[in-house]
């Protein structure tokens, strides 16, 4: 496949790994922001191609992981209603709420459907005028244009039975929250390539300057991630702190103005709670008042939602890069993708889930790995 295969080429990956080895003179801690990047790194085993001095910590760029428990419970309360067709991206279906998950609700008769695009929901709404179609609109800035368009289009058509439940989050405030934290170890960032395709990277320049950290906007293929890492390390070795673009084939400094325009018409910035981190001011989107009649949070009164997080979960520390998944005593034992205790294990993008699924054998000593496998089989 063009623009994919070339960026997975082994020889060039080895070449980049060698160049990284040559560049590094001392330890550095880098964070890749986006969950898709974490997924790619662990899936291709990229962190094992890097020298020991380079530590990659995984950031909070997983909207599935950071969606607050309260919002998940709210989604499930809406999905349970017999007059609702609840639509969601596949990612959210197995995320456990306080009691259940959407897939289990589906097995009990709720009309829960996986969609690939928010526009699919409009088709469903047109075809089912007697039902209320609700779309779970989660995501970073990358997905906002699609979600905005679904609402915009619904209004154009006068569709009355469509609404979205919004849990959008923004990257820069999360990065700042990490950088402001007293136990922060991150010295440089691989910036979120597809978020920046939409919003550009102008807003990262003040962050790089204020905190003196290099930020390299990076793609998602193995060669992109290795090259982005190299660029960030070169800056760190040279004492620089600039915003660079590793992904110019789709990212421009100003981003996609047409998309930004529509997003601005439909959404406005608001405070958002991040699971495992807490409320970060001005870190999310909500629908503007003009689109209140498309806002599922207002349309469906589901009562107050009481939630309870696990006390042993250290998701917050993992999301901020302070701890690694295998630092957690529950990792691989009480907490697995089959029974996740917290944010970072619930989705395939979460750092803990990614480590568990793709890389745990390399982090555990052989005896421990064997023992963990036994425990897993016994508990399964």
């Amino acid at each position: 496949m063009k623009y994919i295969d070339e960026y997975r080429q082994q020889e060039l990956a080895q070449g980049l790994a060698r160049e990284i080895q040559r560049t590094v003179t001392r330890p550095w801690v880098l964070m890749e922001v986006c969950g898709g990047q974490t997924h790619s790194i662990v899936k291709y085993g990229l962190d094992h191609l890097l020298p020991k001095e380079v530590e990659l910590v995984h950031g909070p760029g997983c909207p599935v992981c950071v969606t607050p428990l309260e919002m998940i419970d709210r989604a499930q309360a809406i999905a349970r209603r017999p007059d609702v067709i609840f639509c969601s991206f596949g990612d959210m279906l197995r995320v456990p709420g306080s009691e259940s998950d959407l897939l289990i609700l589906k097995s009990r008769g709720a009309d829960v459907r996986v969609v690939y695009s928010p526009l699919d929901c409009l088709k469903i709404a047109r075809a089912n005028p007697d039902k209320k179609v609700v779309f779970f609109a989660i995501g970073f800035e990358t997905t906002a244009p699609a979600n905005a368009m679904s609402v915009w289009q619904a209004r154009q058509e006068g569709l009355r039975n469509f609404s979205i439940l919004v849990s959008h989050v923004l990257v820069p405030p999360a990065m700042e929250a990490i950088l402001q934290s007293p136990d922060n170890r991150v010295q440089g960032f691989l910036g979120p390539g597809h978020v920046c395709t939409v919003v550009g990277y102008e807003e990262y320049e003040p962050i790089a300057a204020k905190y003196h950290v290099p930020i390299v906007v990076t793609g998602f293929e193995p060669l992109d991630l290795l090259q982005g890492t190299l660029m960030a390390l070169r800056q760190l070795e040279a004492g620089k702190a600039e915003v660079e673009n590793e992904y110019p084939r789709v990212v421009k400094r100003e981003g996609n103005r047409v998309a930004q325009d529509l997003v601005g018409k439909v959404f406005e910035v608001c405070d958002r709670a991040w699971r495992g981190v807490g409320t970060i001011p001005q870190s999310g989107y909500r629908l503007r008042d003009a689109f209140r009649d498309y806002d599922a949070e207002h349309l469906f009164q589901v009562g107050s939602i009481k939630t309870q997080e696990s006390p042993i979960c250290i998701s917050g520390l993992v999301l901020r890069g302070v701890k690694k998944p295998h630092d957690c005593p529950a990792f691989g034992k009480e907490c697995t993708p089959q029974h996740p205790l917290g944010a970072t294990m619930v989705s395939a993008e979460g750092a803990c889930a990614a480590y568990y699924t793709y890389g745990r054998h390399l982090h555990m000593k052989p005896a421990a790995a064997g023992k963990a496998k036994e425990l897993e089989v016994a508990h399964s």
Partner: protein
Amino acid sequence: MSTTSAPEHEPTAPGPAKAARGVDVGALLGSCPVPIMDHKEVVLAHGSGGKLTHQLITRMVLPQFRNEFLEPLHDGAVFSVNGSRLAFSTDSYVVKPIFFPGGDIGKLAVHGTVNDLAMCGARPLYLSVGFILEEGLPMDDLWRVIRSMQEAAAQAGVALVTGDTKVVDRGKGDQIFINTSGIGLVPPGVRIHPSRARVGDKVLINGPIAVHGIAIMSVREGLEFESEITSDTAPLNGLVEAMLKACPDMHVLRDPTRGGVTSALAEIAEQAKVGIRLEETRIPLSEAVKGACEILGLDPLYVANEGKVLAIVPAEAADAVLAAMRNHPLGRDAALIGEVVDDHPGLVTMKTTVGGSRVVDMLSGEQLPRIC
């Protein structure tokens, strides 16, 4: 598990259920607790071939029916009757849509049991079929399915010798469910068993992966293909016969259906207590299937296959088996995709296209498309 080969004696009546590790079988009738605590109800994931299916079988079914023929949890059971070794297998089909590019539910049902028998090293002989029909199923559709089964059985060289038909109320059954069961003869000297995988063995496959699952998805999701992706469903008994001729001491055969290549190999690794290491660059995958997986956010290693067989063969026989496969119409693109290792027993790992390493783990349920 201590058995290393299929037993060569008259089958004895199964003894009292022995307690499986970690499961309280509760000998007292009427106060027997349900072993699985995590789910109070059956969920779709219990049928997807991954961890939950495995859990359901090993914690609920196996302990109740414990016997040496069931233990291997292989595609079929092998036992002796009057000196001949027979293989016996069953499979049920609930696929939707019932007609898809390259086949239909009937064809799948015939191939499925023929292949399960072939995976035991057996020559498939006789099939039974059970139909559960939903009231309202168009007669034309039923006729198409039956004709398709007849063609498939003829092509595979098996006879449908007995069957049953039931009809349920409209809304109580999804158009048509089919069960097929089958009996075959295992030639002397052939001993296929998941626990026979040995360190040093090579892992082979007869062609590109993920085709069937994507063909089904393409209908469900309304994807168009430049050249249509058709299901690779096929009877594998002829191919397996050729492979066994090249290597009578075949160690393991498995068809990677639901749960994909991953589930099949993970189960074998766990039962044989060996590690399996794959090489991503060697795994055959067509451009179109790859494109579909990229768009849908699916990993081809977890997508269902039909018409595909994984073989674990002694290293010295690998070349001969590969040659035999490539000589057969169903094995033209056969490839050596990995080997059995003594690192990480029970786990499957893979060397990735860029030279890194990762674990290839069983999913707990159906793989869901992702946007992240």
